[in-house]
């Protein structure tokens, strides 16, 4: 980040700066998508208006909601395991914040440039399961417990297709580094034509499909929302949470959706890059120009909005699977498909 400003920050300065930016990177897109999709797009889909009173077209509704949650009574059930109950939403949030660390927003606009960035991301994404299990168990509610167990079963099952879907991209890019994957897409060529780069959307569309399905399951969204299952388990592991702690879960849920969309954008849509011929027209240095540290986040945001649109579209359209159907779907359809995808990718990589 510091390269943009041509000023060398001290270690503690850049740490604080990055910390603030992490909050921005998690919370602002979350708020934006919640307003755009959860409030407005869904209202349109369901032929109603959605929030209209707070601010123009209800745009301040989210702030009102946050204020409402923040001042609600903080209820911990009598039989609950208090410490675990309190800690659970934070564990879920930690997973969200660890995820955003490895997402590249520009050539230098990145929190940490791990060698094994995508591997790290997939690793920390599984931490949220622990938070959900803690919440489910500590609530001392049967609905929560069933919800937590369902969530754990589902998240374990869908970790595998998620990883396997990414493997195709990794094979094609030849690196686990997120920045490297973006670079490979920018510098790539489709049949010798490099004007569009090579977003893996074109070659790994099966991977993208599997990735999005698995993300939908990881996020426990319809049609895989059995852990929450409004009509069965009321709210699953979140049943007993209220006020601020519920807000934390809420942020965790929607921010994680955004960050997975960021990941999908990075892996399949060329990340912060734009088609190289446009970049070359804009700057002589192409994608290496420092301005991409500012353009990149905007590009990422656009791509993220595209993917979250699909996520929410599906979420508010489909009924939910049953638990066993979900497992069948994962093990008998997604995983074989992902394996075939990897095999084909490997063969093609060797051939070309």
């Amino acid at each position, binding site marked *: 980040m510091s390269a943009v400003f041509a000023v060398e920050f001290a270690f503690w300065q850049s740490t604080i700066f990055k910390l603030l930016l992490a909050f921005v990177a998690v919370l602002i897109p979350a708020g934006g998508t919640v307003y755009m999709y959860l409030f407005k797009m869904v209202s349109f889909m369901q032929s109603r208006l959605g929030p209209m009173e707070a601010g123009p077209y209800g745009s301040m509704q989210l702030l009102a909601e946050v204020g409402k949650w923040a001042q609600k009574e903080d209820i911990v059930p009598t039989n609950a395991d208090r410490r675990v109950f309190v800690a659970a939403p934070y564990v879920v949030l930690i997973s969200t914040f660890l995820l955003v660390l490895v997402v590249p927003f520009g050539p230098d606009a990145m929190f940490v440039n791990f060698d094994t960035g995508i591997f790290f991301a997939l690793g920390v994404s599984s931490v949220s399961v622990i938070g959900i299990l803690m919440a489910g168990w500590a609530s001392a509610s*049967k609905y929560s417990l069933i919800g937590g167990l369902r969530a754990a079963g589902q998240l374990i099952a869908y970790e595998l297709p998620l990883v396997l879907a990414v493997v195709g991209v990794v094979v094609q890019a030849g690196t686990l580094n997120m920045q490297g994957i973006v670079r490979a897409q920018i510098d790539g060529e489709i049949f010798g034509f490099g004007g569009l780069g090579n977003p893996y959307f074109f070659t790994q569309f099966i991977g993208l499909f599997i990735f999005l399905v698995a993300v939908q399951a990881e996020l426990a969204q319809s049609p895989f929302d059995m852990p929450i299952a409004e*009509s069965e388990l009321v709210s699953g592991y979140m049943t007993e949470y209220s006020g601020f702690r519920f807000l934390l879960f809420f942020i965790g849920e929607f921010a994680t959706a955004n960050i997975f969309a960021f990941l999908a954008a990075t892996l399949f849509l060329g990340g912060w890059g734009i088609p190289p011929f446009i970049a070359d027209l804009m700057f002589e240095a192409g994608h290496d120009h420092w301005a991409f540290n500012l353009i990149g986040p905007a590009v990422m945001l656009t791509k993220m909005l595209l993917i979250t649109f699909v996520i929410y579209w599906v979420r*508010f359209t489909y*009924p939910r699977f049953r*638990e066993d159907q979900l497992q069948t779907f994962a093990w008998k359809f997604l995983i074989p498909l992902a394996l075939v995808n990897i095999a084909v990718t490997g063969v093609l990589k060797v051939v070309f």
Partner: protein
Amino acid sequence: MTAVNDRRQMAYIAAQAADARVNLELEAEGMTLNIGPQHPATHGTLRLVVQLDGEQVIHADPVMGYMHRGYEKLTEVRTYPQVTTLINRIDWLGSFANEVPFILAAEQLMGIEAPPRAQWIRTILFELARIANVTLFLGDMGVQLGAVSPVFYAFRDREYILNQIESATGGRFHPNFDRIGGIKDDLPAGWIAETKSALKEIRDFCDEMEDLIVGNEIYEARTRGIGIIPADVGLSYGLTGANIRASGVDWDVRRDNPVGLAYDQVDWKVWTHPDGDSFARYWVRLQETRESCHIVEQLLDGLPAGPIMTKVPRIIKVPEGEAYIETENPLGVMGYYIVSQGGLEPFRVKIRSASFSNISITPWLLKGTYVPDVITILASLYFILGDIDR
């Protein structure tokens, strides 16, 4: 129902029961889950105590009475015209339909009959009440299965029907419009044309639901083969309405015993489905809603002129006797058994409400199913709490 189907269903049920038994033997220790009284799947305050083994139901025991209002007792201290106000609240989504069998039973005791125009308008409103009731089910089934959007369409399109009911009777939910000997008022001017356009919206809504829900693979996977009720079992539990027609029983009180209503004047069809599962119950209700539109359209076209009230005494005294009239209400067969001793009030009124019998099958039906299927089955049986608890 064909014999093949019969065998398949029996095999499925036997497998279900065997599964439940096996698990019971393996793990005696289970979890008792209280679904309700406050639970989104129970449409009010039904409580379902289920014993679970993992997510499989070993034993389900519905507990009701949270909304018991004692109508059978209350009717004994109210005059006949006063009773209709009360019984409007039994099935509160299709209120007008609750009044009709009671009024018909009283009319039978008094030996009078409403004039044809009143009978036709009664039938029209009866069917509109059915449409208003069942549209909500058609959307709500999606919600119970996790698709939130359809119910909003249901609320949107039900409004057209409620507006028509309101402009004819003055009440959106509780019309209290039926009178002994006829109906309260004639239809307002222009009502027929408006109703026809409202019915168009409902037909569109039905097409939409067929697209969104019936045609959805996940929906099919969740409902086909879930909660199979063989016809014989359903009948001995007293299941009625679309629930039993979905099991292949071709029985509709509207067609087979149309006392005092104009169903025999129009051309319509009773829909049945051989499968008896949750999918069939939804499908039958969907077709019936269309059929209702068809019935109302014909009735509107052929509405006879004439008086809407027959001659009744100012103070209604019902002669001594007993009468039982049942009609095909939105939720199933609803009947009133009235015992009169010649007074102003009925001596005893037994209300046979559809949901009470429909839900009484749940302990048998839920055994061996899984928690998500419990919700599917409850939703597909379609009950309304006021109709269970009375």
